[in-house]
Protein backbone atom coordinates (compact mmCIF):
# COMPACT_ATOMS: atom_id res chain seq x y z
CA UNK A 1 0.00 0.00 0.00
CA UNK A 2 2.82 2.36 0.89
CA UNK A 3 6.28 1.89 -0.50
CA UNK A 4 9.15 4.10 0.51
CA UNK A 5 12.44 3.82 -1.27
CA UNK A 6 15.72 5.37 -0.35
CA UNK A 7 13.99 8.37 1.18
CA UNK A 8 16.28 11.23 2.12
CA UNK A 9 15.56 14.68 3.48
CA UNK A 10 18.36 17.17 3.86
CA UNK A 11 18.23 20.68 5.17
CA UNK A 12 20.97 23.20 4.68
CA UNK A 13 22.54 22.45 8.02
CA UNK A 14 21.43 18.92 8.83
CA UNK A 15 20.12 15.68 7.43
CA UNK A 16 16.73 14.73 8.83
CA UNK A 17 16.41 11.31 7.23
CA UNK A 18 18.84 9.32 5.20
CA UNK A 19 18.22 6.46 2.79
CA UNK A 20 15.08 5.11 4.38
CA UNK A 21 13.29 2.23 2.67
CA UNK A 22 10.28 0.23 3.81
CA UNK A 23 6.91 -1.11 2.69
CA UNK A 24 3.57 -1.15 4.41
CA UNK A 25 1.13 -3.88 3.38
CA UNK A 26 -2.58 -3.27 2.97
CA UNK A 27 -4.42 -3.67 6.25
CA UNK A 28 -1.27 -3.51 8.31
CA UNK A 29 -0.62 -1.32 11.33
CA UNK A 30 2.94 -0.08 11.28
CA UNK A 31 4.51 1.77 14.17
CA UNK A 32 7.34 4.25 13.99
CA UNK A 33 9.28 4.13 17.19
CA UNK A 34 12.06 6.48 17.99
CA UNK A 35 13.21 9.29 20.25
CA UNK A 36 12.18 12.86 19.57
CA UNK A 37 13.95 14.31 16.57
CA UNK A 38 14.63 10.90 15.07
CA UNK A 39 12.77 11.77 11.85
CA UNK A 40 9.35 10.24 12.49
CA UNK A 41 7.39 13.42 11.80
CA UNK A 42 9.52 14.28 8.77
CA UNK A 43 8.91 10.85 7.24
CA UNK A 44 5.17 11.16 7.80
CA UNK A 45 5.07 14.66 6.37
CA UNK A 46 6.76 13.42 3.21
CA UNK A 47 4.34 10.50 2.83
CA UNK A 48 1.36 12.85 3.14
CA UNK A 49 2.83 15.21 0.59
CA UNK A 50 3.15 18.09 3.04
CA UNK A 51 6.83 18.47 2.24
CA UNK A 52 8.91 17.22 -0.68
CA UNK A 53 11.81 14.86 -0.16
CA UNK A 54 15.36 15.63 -1.20
CA UNK A 55 15.80 12.20 -2.71
CA UNK A 56 13.98 8.88 -3.03
CA UNK A 57 10.41 7.98 -3.86
CA UNK A 58 7.21 7.43 -1.93
CA UNK A 59 4.28 5.61 -3.48
CA UNK A 60 0.85 5.25 -1.94
CA UNK A 61 -1.50 2.81 -3.63
CA UNK A 62 0.76 2.99 -6.68
CA UNK A 63 0.71 6.79 -6.94
CA UNK A 64 3.93 8.71 -6.59
CA UNK A 65 3.67 11.51 -4.03
CA UNK A 66 5.81 13.84 -6.13
CA UNK A 67 4.01 13.24 -9.42
CA UNK A 68 0.37 12.75 -8.40
CA UNK A 69 0.07 14.49 -5.04
CA UNK A 70 -3.72 14.90 -5.20
CA UNK A 71 -4.32 11.19 -5.85
CA UNK A 72 -2.16 10.37 -2.86
CA UNK A 73 -3.77 12.97 -0.59
CA UNK A 74 -7.24 11.69 -1.51
CA UNK A 75 -6.25 8.31 -0.05
CA UNK A 76 -4.71 9.55 3.16
CA UNK A 77 -6.23 10.68 6.44
CA UNK A 78 -3.58 12.58 8.36
CA UNK A 79 -3.31 13.58 11.97
CA UNK A 80 -0.31 15.90 12.34
CA UNK A 81 1.71 16.22 15.53
CA UNK A 82 -0.41 19.19 16.58
CA UNK A 83 -4.05 18.61 15.67
CA UNK A 84 -4.87 21.16 12.95
CA UNK A 85 -7.93 22.76 14.52
CA UNK A 86 -9.78 25.99 13.75
CA UNK A 87 -10.43 26.65 17.40
CA UNK A 88 -13.08 29.31 16.91
CA UNK A 89 -15.39 26.80 15.19
CA UNK A 90 -17.70 24.26 16.77
CA UNK A 91 -16.66 20.61 16.60
CA UNK A 92 -19.44 19.88 14.13
CA UNK A 93 -18.76 22.96 12.00
CA UNK A 94 -15.06 22.12 11.83
CA UNK A 95 -15.63 18.49 10.85
CA UNK A 96 -18.16 19.53 8.21
CA UNK A 97 -15.56 21.89 6.76
CA UNK A 98 -12.87 19.20 6.63
CA UNK A 99 -15.30 16.73 5.05
CA UNK A 100 -16.14 19.24 2.31
CA UNK A 101 -12.47 20.04 1.88
CA UNK A 102 -11.90 16.33 1.23
CA UNK A 103 -14.53 16.51 -1.48
CA UNK A 104 -17.50 14.98 0.34
CA UNK A 105 -20.78 16.48 -0.84
CA UNK A 106 -24.46 16.64 -0.01
CA UNK A 107 -26.04 14.53 2.71
CA UNK A 108 -22.91 12.39 2.97
CA UNK A 109 -21.14 15.27 4.73
CA UNK A 110 -23.33 14.96 7.81
CA UNK A 111 -23.27 11.14 7.68
CA UNK A 112 -19.48 11.11 7.60
CA UNK A 113 -19.22 13.66 10.37
CA UNK A 114 -21.63 11.74 12.59
CA UNK A 115 -19.78 8.49 11.99
CA UNK A 116 -16.39 10.00 12.74
CA UNK A 117 -17.68 11.69 15.91
CA UNK A 118 -19.21 8.42 17.00
CA UNK A 119 -15.96 6.52 16.48
CA UNK A 120 -13.90 8.76 18.74
CA UNK A 121 -16.72 9.40 21.18
CA UNK A 122 -17.16 13.15 20.81
CA UNK A 123 -20.80 13.30 19.75
CA UNK A 124 -21.74 14.89 23.09
CA UNK A 125 -19.52 17.93 22.48
CA UNK A 126 -20.40 18.51 18.83
CA UNK A 127 -21.97 21.93 19.45
CA UNK A 128 -19.10 23.19 21.62
CA UNK A 129 -16.43 25.65 20.47
CA UNK A 130 -13.16 23.75 19.99
CA UNK A 131 -11.15 26.33 21.94
CA UNK A 132 -13.19 25.51 25.05
CA UNK A 133 -12.46 21.78 24.92
CA UNK A 134 -9.91 19.92 27.00
CA UNK A 135 -6.69 18.69 25.43
CA UNK A 136 -7.99 15.11 25.22
CA UNK A 137 -11.11 16.18 23.36
CA UNK A 138 -9.08 18.35 21.00
CA UNK A 139 -6.85 15.39 20.21
CA UNK A 140 -9.90 13.26 19.48
CA UNK A 141 -11.37 15.94 17.20
CA UNK A 142 -8.05 15.74 15.35
CA UNK A 143 -8.39 11.97 14.99
CA UNK A 144 -12.02 12.33 13.83
CA UNK A 145 -10.84 14.75 11.18
CA UNK A 146 -8.40 12.16 9.82
CA UNK A 147 -11.16 9.52 9.64
CA UNK A 148 -13.48 11.66 7.49
CA UNK A 149 -14.23 10.34 4.02
CA UNK A 150 -12.94 6.95 5.16
CA UNK A 151 -9.45 7.08 3.62
CA UNK A 152 -7.74 3.72 3.01
CA UNK A 153 -4.48 4.98 4.55
CA UNK A 154 -4.21 6.67 7.92
CA UNK A 155 -1.08 8.49 9.01
CA UNK A 156 -1.25 9.31 12.70
CA UNK A 157 1.53 11.29 14.33
CA UNK A 158 1.47 10.52 18.06
CA UNK A 159 -2.25 9.77 18.18
CA UNK A 160 -2.49 9.14 21.93
CA UNK A 161 -0.51 12.12 23.15
CA UNK A 162 -2.40 14.24 25.65
CA UNK A 163 -5.01 11.61 26.40
CA UNK A 164 -5.74 10.11 29.78
CA UNK A 165 -5.16 6.36 30.30
CA UNK A 166 -8.77 5.41 29.60
CA UNK A 167 -8.86 7.46 26.41
CA UNK A 168 -5.52 6.04 25.36
CA UNK A 169 -7.01 2.58 25.65
CA UNK A 170 -10.04 3.65 23.59
CA UNK A 171 -7.91 5.14 20.84
CA UNK A 172 -5.72 2.03 20.72
CA UNK A 173 -8.84 -0.12 20.38
CA UNK A 174 -10.06 2.21 17.64
CA UNK A 175 -6.80 1.91 15.73
CA UNK A 176 -6.86 -1.87 16.05
CA UNK A 177 -10.42 -1.95 14.75
CA UNK A 178 -9.27 -0.02 11.68
CA UNK A 179 -6.78 -2.70 10.65
CA UNK A 180 -7.78 -4.90 7.76
CA UNK A 181 -9.70 -2.30 5.81
CA UNK A 182 -7.22 0.43 6.52
CA UNK A 183 -3.49 0.72 6.38
CA UNK A 184 -2.26 2.60 9.42
CA UNK A 185 1.09 4.21 10.06
CA UNK A 186 1.47 5.67 13.52
CA UNK A 187 4.36 7.15 15.41
CA UNK A 188 5.04 6.97 19.09
CA UNK A 189 7.83 6.90 21.57
CA UNK A 190 5.90 4.66 23.93
CA UNK A 191 6.96 1.02 23.74
CA UNK A 192 3.81 -0.63 25.15
CA UNK A 193 1.73 1.31 22.67
CA UNK A 194 3.57 -0.32 19.83
CA UNK A 195 3.19 -3.75 21.42
CA UNK A 196 -0.54 -3.38 21.85
CA UNK A 197 -1.48 -1.92 18.49
CA UNK A 198 1.12 -2.56 15.83
CA UNK A 199 1.78 -5.56 13.63
CA UNK A 200 5.22 -4.35 12.76
CA UNK A 201 7.60 -1.76 14.12
CA UNK A 202 10.22 0.37 12.50
CA UNK A 203 12.72 1.83 14.90
CA UNK A 204 14.24 5.07 13.74
CA UNK A 205 17.17 6.84 15.23
CA UNK A 206 18.89 9.92 13.87
CA UNK A 207 17.15 9.64 10.52
CA UNK A 208 17.98 6.01 9.87
CA UNK A 209 16.10 2.75 10.26
CA UNK A 210 17.72 0.79 13.07
CA UNK A 211 15.41 -2.20 13.15
CA UNK A 212 12.27 -3.57 11.53
CA UNK A 213 10.48 -6.37 13.31
CA UNK A 214 7.33 -7.51 15.04
CA UNK A 215 6.81 -6.06 18.50
CA UNK A 216 7.07 -9.56 20.03
CA UNK A 217 10.50 -10.18 18.59
CA UNK A 218 11.70 -6.79 19.67
CA UNK A 219 10.34 -7.36 23.11
CA UNK A 220 12.09 -10.68 23.55
CA UNK A 221 15.30 -9.11 22.43
CA UNK A 222 15.21 -6.43 25.07
CA UNK A 223 13.95 -8.59 27.89
CA UNK A 224 15.80 -11.72 26.98
CA UNK A 225 19.21 -11.96 25.61
CA UNK A 226 21.08 -10.43 22.84
CA UNK A 227 21.71 -11.21 19.25
CA UNK A 228 25.04 -12.12 17.74
CA UNK A 229 25.88 -11.84 14.10
CA UNK A 230 28.40 -14.33 12.75
CA UNK A 231 29.76 -14.81 9.31
CA UNK A 232 31.12 -18.24 8.61
CA UNK A 233 32.90 -19.87 5.73
CA UNK A 234 31.32 -23.30 5.50
CA UNK A 235 28.13 -25.20 4.62
CA UNK A 236 25.22 -23.07 5.87
CA UNK A 237 22.94 -25.91 6.91
CA UNK A 238 25.60 -27.69 8.97
CA UNK A 239 26.65 -24.46 10.66
CA UNK A 240 23.07 -23.75 11.59
CA UNK A 241 22.61 -27.14 13.19
CA UNK A 242 25.85 -26.84 15.13
CA UNK A 243 25.06 -23.36 16.35
CA UNK A 244 21.56 -24.26 17.44
CA UNK A 245 22.90 -27.18 19.45
CA UNK A 246 24.98 -24.86 21.63
CA UNK A 247 23.66 -24.28 25.14
CA UNK A 248 22.23 -20.80 25.62
CA UNK A 249 21.15 -20.33 22.00
CA UNK A 250 17.44 -19.56 21.67
CA UNK A 251 17.30 -19.44 17.92
CA UNK A 252 19.49 -19.01 14.89
CA UNK A 253 18.76 -18.22 11.27
CA UNK A 254 20.54 -17.48 8.02
CA UNK A 255 20.63 -13.82 7.05
CA UNK A 256 22.63 -13.90 3.84
CA UNK A 257 23.96 -16.87 1.98
CA UNK A 258 26.63 -16.91 -0.68
CA UNK A 259 28.55 -19.71 -2.38
CA UNK A 260 31.07 -20.43 0.34
CA UNK A 261 30.13 -18.18 3.24
CA UNK A 262 26.92 -17.25 5.04
CA UNK A 263 25.99 -14.95 7.86
CA UNK A 264 23.67 -15.86 10.72
CA UNK A 265 21.68 -14.14 13.40
CA UNK A 266 22.01 -16.04 16.65
CA UNK A 267 19.49 -15.12 19.38
CA UNK A 268 20.85 -15.68 22.84
CA UNK A 269 18.94 -16.53 25.96
CA UNK A 270 18.92 -13.85 28.64
CA UNK A 271 22.14 -12.69 30.19
CA UNK A 272 24.56 -15.17 28.68
CA UNK A 273 27.59 -14.42 26.65
CA UNK A 274 28.08 -17.23 24.15
CA UNK A 275 30.60 -15.61 21.89
CA UNK A 276 33.49 -17.71 23.20
CA UNK A 277 31.54 -20.97 22.73
CA UNK A 278 30.37 -19.87 19.31
CA UNK A 279 33.85 -19.14 18.10
CA UNK A 280 35.19 -22.39 19.46
CA UNK A 281 32.43 -24.45 17.86
CA UNK A 282 32.95 -22.90 14.46
CA UNK A 283 36.71 -23.19 14.50
CA UNK A 284 36.76 -26.76 15.87
CA UNK A 285 34.43 -27.85 13.09
CA UNK A 286 37.03 -26.63 10.64
CA UNK A 287 35.04 -23.72 9.24
CA UNK A 288 36.36 -20.20 8.88
CA UNK A 289 35.03 -17.63 11.32
CA UNK A 290 35.04 -14.40 9.30
CA UNK A 291 33.09 -12.15 11.60
CA UNK A 292 31.56 -12.20 15.03
CA UNK A 293 29.68 -9.20 16.27
CA UNK A 294 27.37 -8.57 19.17
CA UNK A 295 24.35 -6.67 17.88
CA UNK A 296 22.35 -6.02 20.97
CA UNK A 297 24.08 -2.93 22.27
CA UNK A 298 22.82 -0.26 19.89
CA UNK A 299 19.27 -1.56 20.00
CA UNK A 300 19.34 -1.67 23.74
CA UNK A 301 20.64 1.86 23.95
CA UNK A 302 17.80 3.09 21.84
CA UNK A 303 15.28 1.23 23.88
CA UNK A 304 16.57 2.73 27.06
CA UNK A 305 15.91 6.12 25.58
CA UNK A 306 12.47 5.03 24.40
CA UNK A 307 11.32 3.31 27.53
CA UNK A 308 12.34 6.16 29.80
CA UNK A 309 9.99 8.36 27.79
CA UNK A 310 7.16 6.05 28.80
CA UNK A 311 7.62 6.91 32.48
CA UNK A 312 6.16 10.36 31.96
CA UNK A 313 2.47 9.61 32.33
CA UNK A 314 0.26 11.52 29.88
CA UNK A 315 -1.70 14.29 31.55
CA UNK A 316 -5.34 13.63 32.35
CA UNK A 317 -7.55 15.18 29.74
CA UNK A 318 -10.47 16.56 31.65
Amino acid at each position, binding site marked *: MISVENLTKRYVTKTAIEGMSFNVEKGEILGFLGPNGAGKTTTM*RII*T*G*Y*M*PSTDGTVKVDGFDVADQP*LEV*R*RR*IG*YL*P*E*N*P*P*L*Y*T*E*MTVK*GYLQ*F*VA*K*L*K*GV*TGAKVQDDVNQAMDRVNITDVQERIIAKLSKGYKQRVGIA*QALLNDPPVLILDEPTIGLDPKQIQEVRELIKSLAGNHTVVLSTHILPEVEQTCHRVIIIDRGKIVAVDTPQNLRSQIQGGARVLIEVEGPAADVLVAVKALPGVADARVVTQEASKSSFHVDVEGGRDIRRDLARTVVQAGWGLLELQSENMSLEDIFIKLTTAEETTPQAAS
Partner: protein
Amino acid sequence: MKSILVIAERELKTYFTSPIAYVVLTIFTFLAGFVFYFFVGVMVESVGSRAMMSAQTGRPPDPIDMPGVIVQNMFNFLSFVLLLVLPMITMALFSEEKKRGTMELLLTAPVTDLQVVLGKYVAASAFYLILLATTLVELAVLFTYSQPAKGPILSAYLGMALYGLAIIAIGMFISTLTESQVISVILTFGVLMVLWLIDALARSAGATVKAVLSYLSILEHTNDFLQGVIGTSHIIFYLSFIALGIFLTYRSLDSLRWRS
Protein backbone atom coordinates in the same frame (compact mmCIF):
# COMPACT_ATOMS: atom_id res chain seq x y z
CA MET B 1 -13.98 25.65 -8.08
CA LYS B 2 -15.92 23.91 -5.36
CA SER B 3 -12.86 23.57 -3.14
CA ILE B 4 -12.18 27.29 -3.54
CA LEU B 5 -15.66 28.09 -2.28
CA VAL B 6 -15.38 25.65 0.64
CA ILE B 7 -12.18 27.41 1.77
CA ALA B 8 -13.62 30.86 1.13
CA GLU B 9 -16.79 30.10 3.07
CA ARG B 10 -14.89 29.05 6.18
CA GLU B 11 -12.64 32.08 5.96
CA LEU B 12 -15.61 34.46 5.66
CA LYS B 13 -17.27 32.85 8.67
CA THR B 14 -14.04 33.36 10.61
CA TYR B 15 -14.13 37.07 9.81
CA PHE B 16 -17.52 37.39 11.42
CA THR B 17 -16.65 35.34 14.50
CA SER B 18 -13.67 37.54 15.27
CA PRO B 19 -13.90 41.13 16.51
CA ILE B 20 -11.68 42.41 13.71
CA ALA B 21 -14.45 42.35 11.14
CA TYR B 22 -16.70 44.44 13.33
CA VAL B 23 -13.94 46.91 14.23
CA VAL B 24 -13.13 47.37 10.56
CA LEU B 25 -16.79 47.73 9.59
CA THR B 26 -17.39 50.25 12.38
CA ILE B 27 -14.37 52.43 11.58
CA PHE B 28 -15.05 52.38 7.87
CA THR B 29 -18.79 53.11 7.99
CA PHE B 30 -18.31 55.81 10.62
CA LEU B 31 -15.63 57.59 8.58
CA ALA B 32 -17.63 57.20 5.37
CA GLY B 33 -20.68 58.75 7.03
CA PHE B 34 -18.63 61.49 8.61
CA VAL B 35 -16.83 62.51 5.44
CA PHE B 36 -20.08 62.36 3.46
CA TYR B 37 -21.73 64.69 5.95
CA PHE B 38 -18.72 66.99 5.80
CA PHE B 39 -18.68 67.30 2.01
CA VAL B 40 -22.44 67.80 1.79
CA GLY B 41 -21.91 70.69 4.23
CA VAL B 42 -19.12 72.14 2.08
CA MET B 43 -21.31 71.88 -1.02
CA VAL B 44 -24.27 73.54 0.66
CA GLU B 45 -22.03 76.42 1.78
CA SER B 46 -20.61 76.79 -1.70
CA VAL B 47 -24.15 77.37 -3.02
CA GLY B 48 -24.24 80.62 -1.07
CA SER B 49 -20.83 81.83 -2.23
CA ARG B 50 -21.58 80.88 -5.85
CA ALA B 51 -24.80 82.89 -5.69
CA MET B 52 -22.82 85.91 -4.47
CA MET B 53 -20.25 85.46 -7.26
CA SER B 54 -22.94 85.40 -9.90
CA ALA B 55 -24.58 88.46 -8.42
CA GLN B 56 -21.27 90.34 -8.68
CA THR B 57 -20.45 89.26 -12.25
CA GLY B 58 -24.02 89.36 -13.46
CA ARG B 59 -23.66 85.91 -15.07
CA PRO B 60 -25.47 82.74 -13.97
CA PRO B 61 -23.12 80.29 -12.14
CA ASP B 62 -21.47 77.49 -14.17
CA PRO B 63 -23.44 74.29 -13.71
CA ILE B 64 -21.58 71.70 -11.61
CA ASP B 65 -22.46 68.11 -10.75
CA MET B 66 -22.73 68.54 -7.00
CA PRO B 67 -23.60 64.94 -6.09
CA GLY B 68 -20.75 63.80 -8.35
CA VAL B 69 -18.27 66.06 -6.58
CA ILE B 70 -19.45 64.75 -3.21
CA VAL B 71 -19.01 61.13 -4.28
CA GLN B 72 -15.59 61.85 -5.73
CA ASN B 73 -14.37 63.57 -2.58
CA MET B 74 -15.81 60.90 -0.33
CA PHE B 75 -14.06 58.07 -2.19
CA ASN B 76 -10.88 60.08 -2.39
CA PHE B 77 -10.83 60.21 1.38
CA LEU B 78 -11.94 56.60 1.79
CA SER B 79 -9.10 55.37 -0.41
CA PHE B 80 -6.75 56.63 2.32
CA VAL B 81 -8.82 54.96 4.98
CA LEU B 82 -8.57 51.70 3.05
CA LEU B 83 -4.76 51.85 3.18
CA LEU B 84 -5.11 51.55 6.95
CA VAL B 85 -8.07 49.19 7.13
CA LEU B 86 -7.42 46.59 4.42
CA PRO B 87 -4.21 45.24 5.99
CA MET B 88 -6.37 44.24 8.95
CA ILE B 89 -8.47 42.09 6.65
CA THR B 90 -5.46 40.33 5.17
CA MET B 91 -3.12 40.09 8.15
CA ALA B 92 -4.40 36.74 9.45
CA LEU B 93 -5.05 35.03 6.11
CA PHE B 94 -1.98 32.77 6.16
CA SER B 95 -0.07 33.86 9.27
CA GLU B 96 -2.75 32.47 11.54
CA GLU B 97 -2.85 29.15 9.65
CA LYS B 98 0.89 28.83 10.08
CA LYS B 99 0.69 29.59 13.77
CA ARG B 100 -2.16 27.17 14.48
CA GLY B 101 -0.77 24.35 12.38
CA THR B 102 -3.88 24.26 10.21
CA MET B 103 -1.62 24.94 7.24
CA GLU B 104 -0.72 21.26 7.47
CA LEU B 105 -4.40 20.40 7.02
CA LEU B 106 -4.83 22.66 3.99
CA LEU B 107 -1.60 21.55 2.34
CA THR B 108 -2.31 17.83 2.77
CA ALA B 109 -5.98 18.03 1.76
CA PRO B 110 -6.84 16.89 -1.77
CA VAL B 111 -6.80 20.46 -3.07
CA THR B 112 -4.13 22.32 -5.02
CA ASP B 113 -2.11 25.17 -3.52
CA LEU B 114 -3.69 27.52 -6.04
CA GLN B 115 -7.16 26.57 -4.83
CA VAL B 116 -6.10 27.37 -1.27
CA VAL B 117 -4.75 30.76 -2.35
CA LEU B 118 -7.81 31.61 -4.41
CA GLY B 119 -10.17 30.51 -1.63
CA LYS B 120 -8.47 32.90 0.76
CA TYR B 121 -8.43 35.66 -1.82
CA VAL B 122 -12.12 35.26 -2.62
CA ALA B 123 -13.00 35.47 1.08
CA ALA B 124 -11.00 38.63 1.74
CA SER B 125 -12.33 40.18 -1.46
CA ALA B 126 -15.91 39.33 -0.56
CA PHE B 127 -15.45 40.95 2.83
CA TYR B 128 -14.02 44.06 1.17
CA LEU B 129 -16.91 44.28 -1.28
CA ILE B 130 -19.34 44.09 1.65
CA LEU B 131 -17.38 46.92 3.25
CA LEU B 132 -17.53 48.96 0.07
CA ALA B 133 -21.24 48.24 -0.29
CA THR B 134 -21.95 49.98 3.03
CA THR B 135 -21.34 53.28 1.23
CA LEU B 136 -24.55 52.59 -0.70
CA VAL B 137 -26.26 54.14 2.33
CA GLU B 138 -24.69 57.51 1.49
CA LEU B 139 -25.55 56.95 -2.16
CA ALA B 140 -29.17 56.30 -1.21
CA VAL B 141 -29.27 59.68 0.54
CA LEU B 142 -27.85 61.38 -2.55
CA PHE B 143 -30.33 59.67 -4.86
CA THR B 144 -33.21 60.64 -2.56
CA TYR B 145 -32.39 64.34 -2.56
CA SER B 146 -30.76 64.85 -5.96
CA GLN B 147 -30.33 63.35 -9.41
CA PRO B 148 -26.68 62.30 -9.65
CA ALA B 149 -25.24 61.15 -12.97
CA LYS B 150 -25.02 57.36 -12.75
CA GLY B 151 -22.01 56.86 -15.03
CA PRO B 152 -19.31 58.48 -12.90
CA ILE B 153 -20.64 56.73 -9.78
CA LEU B 154 -20.41 53.31 -11.39
CA SER B 155 -16.93 54.11 -12.63
CA ALA B 156 -15.92 55.27 -9.13
CA TYR B 157 -17.13 52.00 -7.64
CA LEU B 158 -15.25 50.00 -10.26
CA GLY B 159 -12.10 51.96 -9.46
CA MET B 160 -12.50 51.51 -5.72
CA ALA B 161 -13.17 47.79 -6.13
CA LEU B 162 -10.04 47.23 -8.23
CA TYR B 163 -7.95 49.38 -5.90
CA GLY B 164 -9.03 47.40 -2.83
CA LEU B 165 -8.58 44.02 -4.53
CA ALA B 166 -5.02 44.98 -5.47
CA ILE B 167 -4.19 45.92 -1.88
CA ILE B 168 -5.69 42.63 -0.66
CA ALA B 169 -3.47 40.66 -3.05
CA ILE B 170 -0.35 42.33 -1.61
CA GLY B 171 -1.55 41.88 1.96
CA MET B 172 -2.30 38.21 1.35
CA PHE B 173 1.23 37.63 0.07
CA ILE B 174 2.76 39.35 3.09
CA SER B 175 0.67 37.22 5.44
CA THR B 176 2.44 34.12 4.11
CA LEU B 177 5.80 35.47 5.26
CA THR B 178 5.26 35.33 9.01
CA GLU B 179 3.44 33.51 11.76
CA SER B 180 2.57 36.74 13.52
CA GLN B 181 -0.50 38.77 12.62
CA VAL B 182 1.12 41.88 14.09
CA ILE B 183 4.23 41.60 11.94
CA SER B 184 2.02 40.84 8.96
CA VAL B 185 -0.12 43.96 9.42
CA ILE B 186 2.84 46.26 10.09
CA LEU B 187 4.75 44.97 7.06
CA THR B 188 1.68 45.49 4.90
CA PHE B 189 1.28 49.06 6.19
CA GLY B 190 4.91 49.70 5.36
CA VAL B 191 4.67 48.35 1.82
CA LEU B 192 1.46 50.29 1.16
CA MET B 193 3.00 53.49 2.49
CA VAL B 194 5.91 53.07 0.10
CA LEU B 195 3.54 52.44 -2.81
CA TRP B 196 1.66 55.56 -1.83
CA LEU B 197 4.69 57.83 -1.23
CA ILE B 198 6.25 56.75 -4.50
CA ASP B 199 4.01 59.38 -6.05
CA ALA B 200 5.56 62.13 -3.92
CA LEU B 201 9.04 60.87 -4.82
CA ALA B 202 8.14 61.04 -8.47
CA ARG B 203 7.62 64.81 -8.35
CA SER B 204 11.27 65.64 -7.88
CA ALA B 205 12.58 63.03 -10.32
CA GLY B 206 13.51 63.27 -13.99
CA ALA B 207 10.94 62.78 -16.71
CA THR B 208 11.44 59.05 -17.37
CA VAL B 209 11.83 58.05 -13.73
CA LYS B 210 8.84 60.20 -12.93
CA ALA B 211 6.67 58.39 -15.44
CA VAL B 212 7.71 55.01 -14.10
CA LEU B 213 7.31 55.92 -10.44
CA SER B 214 3.94 57.56 -10.78
CA TYR B 215 2.77 54.56 -12.77
CA LEU B 216 3.66 52.37 -9.78
CA SER B 217 1.77 54.56 -7.32
CA ILE B 218 -1.21 52.51 -6.32
CA LEU B 219 -3.39 55.47 -5.37
CA GLU B 220 -2.68 57.47 -8.53
CA HIS B 221 -4.64 55.07 -10.70
CA THR B 222 -7.93 55.67 -8.88
CA ASN B 223 -8.11 59.32 -9.96
CA ASP B 224 -9.48 58.75 -13.44
CA PHE B 225 -12.07 56.28 -12.17
CA LEU B 226 -13.30 58.80 -9.60
CA GLN B 227 -13.66 61.40 -12.33
CA GLY B 228 -15.79 59.04 -14.36
CA VAL B 229 -13.13 57.90 -16.81
CA ILE B 230 -12.59 54.15 -17.19
CA GLY B 231 -9.06 53.82 -18.56
CA THR B 232 -7.88 50.49 -19.91
CA SER B 233 -4.35 51.13 -18.70
CA HIS B 234 -5.58 51.58 -15.13
CA ILE B 235 -7.62 48.40 -15.29
CA ILE B 236 -4.58 46.55 -16.60
CA PHE B 237 -2.46 48.06 -13.84
CA TYR B 238 -4.73 46.80 -11.10
CA LEU B 239 -5.34 43.41 -12.70
CA SER B 240 -1.63 42.81 -13.12
CA PHE B 241 -1.09 43.88 -9.52
CA ILE B 242 -3.69 41.35 -8.37
CA ALA B 243 -2.18 38.62 -10.56
CA LEU B 244 1.28 39.38 -9.16
CA GLY B 245 0.03 39.21 -5.57
CA ILE B 246 -1.69 35.88 -6.16
CA PHE B 247 1.35 34.49 -7.95
CA LEU B 248 3.73 35.54 -5.15
CA THR B 249 1.41 34.00 -2.56
CA TYR B 250 1.35 30.76 -4.53
CA ARG B 251 5.14 30.67 -4.81
CA SER B 252 5.51 31.51 -1.16
CA LEU B 253 3.33 28.52 -0.17
CA ASP B 254 5.48 26.31 -2.34
CA SER B 255 8.65 27.50 -0.64
CA LEU B 256 6.98 26.96 2.74
CA ARG B 257 6.70 23.28 1.91
CA TRP B 258 10.42 23.12 1.22
CA ARG B 259 11.44 24.97 4.31
CA SER B 260 9.05 23.48 6.85
